[in-house]
């Protein structure tokens, strides 16, 4: 085993952006001091098609086996939290869209939830329904895309991803009709939503929800029984239940390891307690479980969407006490969290009574889910690193903030 305490073998994280070779050969010596061979230190990323953004992993390989992996962050860091501390509460809302840019609706919701807790605002019934509908649609498109990307990482170039994007396109069209933008929705407001549903929107959404199982069946027929997919995913990157809890893993990854912890069930924020849905759990915690769990979660999302679209009441969409300008909550602090598609997305706000938050903290599920990346990858082949990272489901806008 290599002694990384020795200075010549010490792990040296490079400067982001510094010109350095993408790989380096580290000589390997036996206990007797004879040279046995070489390790290869590879800088995988930041510009790499499989890292889902500008993310870098410094790998040390023995042959093709990973013996060391260190993630390097910060290439997309823009100090979101500092920006939010310097602007008003409302002005941070469009910035939350850019955290996890696949799921702007859930980001909006998490932030709105934290501010509502801080200021004691009540959300009207109709707005709660709209929030659940948009959040579950977001979950559908996020999980569909994730599976497409995962297949892309496996080498199934294009086909599954294009099928997923075809469905995502329909959901984004709905978001555009609702909020005016496809990805940067900026739709929710403290105490409700910005505008009411446009005419015909519910009908369109009902049609989409009715059609969606066809896509899921198609996807399942295409992938889940595929022998190559099973060979590549099963038994790769297994995460134990204890480690998952200890490392703060959340979302589908935690549940794939068999922990029954879904914040929609635990906190019952919004009106999730009115809907019946099951929480799928994995048995092995490997990549295949994480993949299948997302497929099952999409089916459960549809089970929430159907009654929500049927029962949505009419009425106001925003709390009458909520105001846009001169919004100054009382001094205090609040932590609001939701089950975002990637995991537990939380916002911790500290108010000092002024128009700007004193502290604005995002608990990024993508970053914290990467804590165990090294544990999952050690001893695996380098090609599996790509799959494991893909199954974690990260978005760099949220990791680096």
């Amino acid at each position, binding site marked *: 085993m290599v002694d990384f305490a020795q200075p010549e073998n010490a792990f040296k994280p490079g400067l982001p952006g510094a010109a350095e070779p993408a790989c380096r050969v580290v000589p390997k010596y036996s206990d007797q001091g004879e040279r046995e061979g070489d390790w290869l230190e590879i800088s995988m990323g930041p510009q790499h098609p499989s890292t889902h953004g500008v993310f870098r992993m410094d790998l040390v390989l023995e042959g093709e086996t990973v013996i060391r992996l260190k993630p390097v962050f*910060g290439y997309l860091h823009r100090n979101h939290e*500092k920006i939010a501390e310097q602007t008003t509460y409302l002005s941070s809302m469009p910035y939350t869209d850019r955290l996890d840019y696949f799921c702007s609706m859930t980001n909006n919701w998490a932030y709105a939830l934290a501010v509502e807790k801080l200021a004691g605002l009540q959300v009207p019934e109709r707005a709660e329904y709209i929030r659940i509908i948009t959040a579950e649609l977001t979950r559908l498109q996020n999980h569909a895309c994730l599976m497409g990307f995962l297949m892309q990482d496996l080498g199934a170039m294009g086909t599954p991803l294009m099928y997923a994007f075809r469905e995502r396109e329909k959901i984004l069209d709905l978001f555009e009709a609702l909020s005016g933008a496809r990805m940067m929705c900026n739709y929710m407001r403290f105490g409700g939503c910005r505008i009411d549903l446009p005419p015909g929107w519910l009908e369109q959404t009902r049609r989409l929800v009715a059609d969606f199982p066809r896509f899921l069946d198609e996807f399942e027929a295409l992938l889940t029984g595929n022998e190559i997919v099973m060979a590549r995913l099963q038994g790769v990157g297994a995460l134990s239940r204890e480690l998952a809890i200890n490392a703060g*893993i959340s979302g589908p990854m935690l549940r794939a390891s068999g922990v029954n912890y879904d914040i929609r069930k635990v906190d019952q924020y919004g009106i999730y307690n009115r809907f019946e849905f099951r929480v799928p759990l994995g048995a092995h915690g490997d990549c295949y479980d994480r993949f299948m769990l997302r497929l099952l979660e999409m089916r459960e999302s549809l089970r929430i969407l159907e009654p929500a679209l049927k029962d949505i009441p009419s009425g106001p969409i925003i709390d009458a006490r909520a105001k846009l300008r001169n919004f100054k909550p009382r001094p205090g602090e609040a*932590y609001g969290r939701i089950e975002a598609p990637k995991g537990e997305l*939380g916002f911790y706000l500290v*108010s000092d009574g002024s128009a700007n938050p004193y502290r604005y903290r995002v608990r990024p599920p993508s970053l914290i889910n990467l804590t165990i990346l090294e544990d999952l990858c050690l001893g695996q082949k380098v090609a599996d690193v790509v799959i494991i990272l893909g199954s974690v489901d990260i978005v760099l806008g949220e990791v680096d903030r």
Partner: protein
Amino acid sequence: METLPQLKTRLAAAFPKARLEIVPNGSPGNPDSLWVDAASGLKVAGFLKNDAALQLDFLSNVTGLDWLDKTVTEKVRVKREFKGQEIEVDEILEKIVPGYLEVVYHFYSTPLRHGPLVLRMRTENRTDRTHLPSLVPLYRSAEFQEREIYDLYGVIFDGHPDLRRLLMWEGFADHPMRKDYCEPDDYEYEPTPHGALLEKARRHYPREAAHG
């Protein structure tokens, strides 16, 4: 879950040396938090994790906070000699309350599904005594979040296995999330046609800014 005062009594019995205090939350409906001194922080966190009634095994969120030095004015009655006789006068004293860095932990329990329990730890000051115990030996989830707080606030976590900067690059000197952080004059930005940014841009990028 038991209330915070109950928990505080239990903790005080278990750790007689620990200094515990309940920090009230001004926002109604949101939980108060428990302030524990740095020396017994790790022990208290271990208690929270292993206690059968609490089982707070899920450390969800770790937040850094920066509180600046505050000047507090205080009116005091003092005795002074005035023309041979002693009189009492009011005097206004200005006192500087030293600021500190604070780290806030949000704990949840996955088996019992309760939470959050909010725990806070404070450093002695903001400059040289910014040490806090790391919770990584108990909770792996603190690993990246503590690195981030070290990076952005400058809190040094003793016992952290790999305390490096997370988001800023190695060699970056300051801690950008501190309240008194001044951004360097020549940081990278695009010149805009108006205002203070343009003035800065003129100094650093005379040619590009001239087009505006």
